[in-house]
């Protein structure tokens, strides 16, 4: 429990992780699609996420986030395409499902149960249950085991649900809007607690949210779903490094826009502000233009307003 990531990086594993991540790919969707009656909730969704990442799945309401997460957890079957978790097709083998924990939006707790009873329930249902981990986490969070779940605060309920998911010792934890309906303090507490669990277990996490600012420092991989399709999938640092807000004279904006892909274009009388995708370190030769970095939130909003643009890894980056 005291093991340090730095140490494990050099020591080659402290033996805590029972299932070694042989495949460096945690999650792989190939042309994944889901239709409910006449409507496509997800269309032609292809992406690949390396193991050990904390993935932010963002997009407007109705973009297909929940559908995607349910497909990954094997709770529903795809209409077309496939999804693999650590190389195993989802929903075909119980062993593959045991590696995934799913935390639904409406926290799956029983109000009439005490916290201790919820733990026994989790223990009973999950062969790989880590009871020591569960009890230690709840003790650190000062959540009394004899309290009825219904009597806990919203933040504490979220922590109990997270604890149960983590005690399953999954290699992939899937969370649908884990921060919805929580106040800012509880949101921060849940994220702190989740990050500690990631440091301890090195599991891969996929969590959806429509509040990007909550995820900025916690997630290192971004997937943006829009209108049922993947619009962005990539490492957060790389995405931020590859985008710039450039500001300069409006009369030169067309020339600038012709040189690199423009994601957002805002022009006033004299000044133009373009959010552009640049190569790493592409210089702006013209001193009349100023370039500045963008925040994750600005980046996501700019793309969501332009559903026809994408930022997906080049084929060379996705190999193994």
């Amino acid at each position, binding site marked *: 429990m005291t093991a*340090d990531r*730095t140490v494990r*990086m050099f020591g080659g594993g402290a033996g805590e992780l029972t299932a070694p991540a042989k495949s460096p790919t945690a999650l792989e969707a190939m042309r994944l699609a889901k239709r409910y009656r006449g409507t496509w909730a997800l269309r032609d969704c292809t992406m690949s996420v390396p193991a050990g*990442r904390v993935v932010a799945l963002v997009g407007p309401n109705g973009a297909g986030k929940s559908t995607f997460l349910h497909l990954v957890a094997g709770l529903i079957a795809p209409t077309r395409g496939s999804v693999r978790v650590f190389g195993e097709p989802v929903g075909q083998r119980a062993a593959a499902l045991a590696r995934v924990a799913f935390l639904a939006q409406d926290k799956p707790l029983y109000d009439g149960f005490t916290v201790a009873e919820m733990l026994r329930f989790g223990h009973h249902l999950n062969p790989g249950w880590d009871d020591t981990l569960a009890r230690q986490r709840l003790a650190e969070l000062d959540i009394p085991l004899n309290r009825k779940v219904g009597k806990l605060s919203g933040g504490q309920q979220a922590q109990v649900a997270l604890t149960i998911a983590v005690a399953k010792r999954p290699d992939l934890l899937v969370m649908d809007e884990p921060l919805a309906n929580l106040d800012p303090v509880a949101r921060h507490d849940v*994220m702190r607690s989740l990050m500690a669990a*990631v440091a301890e277990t090195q599991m891969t996490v996929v969590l959806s949210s429509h509040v990007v600012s909550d995820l900025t420092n*916690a997630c290192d991989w971004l997937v943006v779903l829009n209108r049922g399709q993947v619009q962005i999938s990539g490492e957060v640092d790389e995405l931020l490094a590859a985008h710039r807000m450039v500001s300069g004279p409006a009369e030169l904006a067309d020339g600038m826009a012709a040189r690199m892909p423009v994601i957002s274009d805002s022009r006033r009388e004299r000044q133009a502000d373009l959010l552009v995708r640049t190569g790493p370190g592409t210089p702006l030769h013209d001193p009349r233009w100023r370039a500045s970095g963008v925040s994750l939130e600005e980046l996501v909003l700019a793309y969501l307003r332009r559903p026809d643009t994408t930022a997906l890894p080049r084929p060379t980056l996705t190999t193994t």
Partner: protein
Amino acid sequence: MIKLRLDPSSGVATYLQLVHQVKHALRLGVLMPGDRLPTIKEVVSDLAINPNTVAKAYRELEHEGLVVGRPGLGTFVRRSLGGGSTADHSRLRRDLAQWVRGCREAGLDQGDMEALFASVLADSVQEGIA
């Protein structure tokens, strides 16, 4: 043990903010050789940031030879930063404190002093290059 913090409005990448803070602590002697840095779990459960970000910062510090990761024990400071002896530091600190008093008497506020210091520093760097 030092406590790492974040400035969300700084625009500086999170891992670099951590690197800068450790270096700053090394320069000021807040961290000394042999001291242990907080574990990755300690940092992330404090700041709610991604463990990979902390690992990246610690790797960078290790790469620069400032810290060393000892398996099972943690990450430790290997050497301190900053030139000059401790005696030099205390003398220069006294001189600077006197300079600050002089500035205050002349009616300069903190922003004026920072700007003046930065400009003199920049001039001296320029002279050094030329």
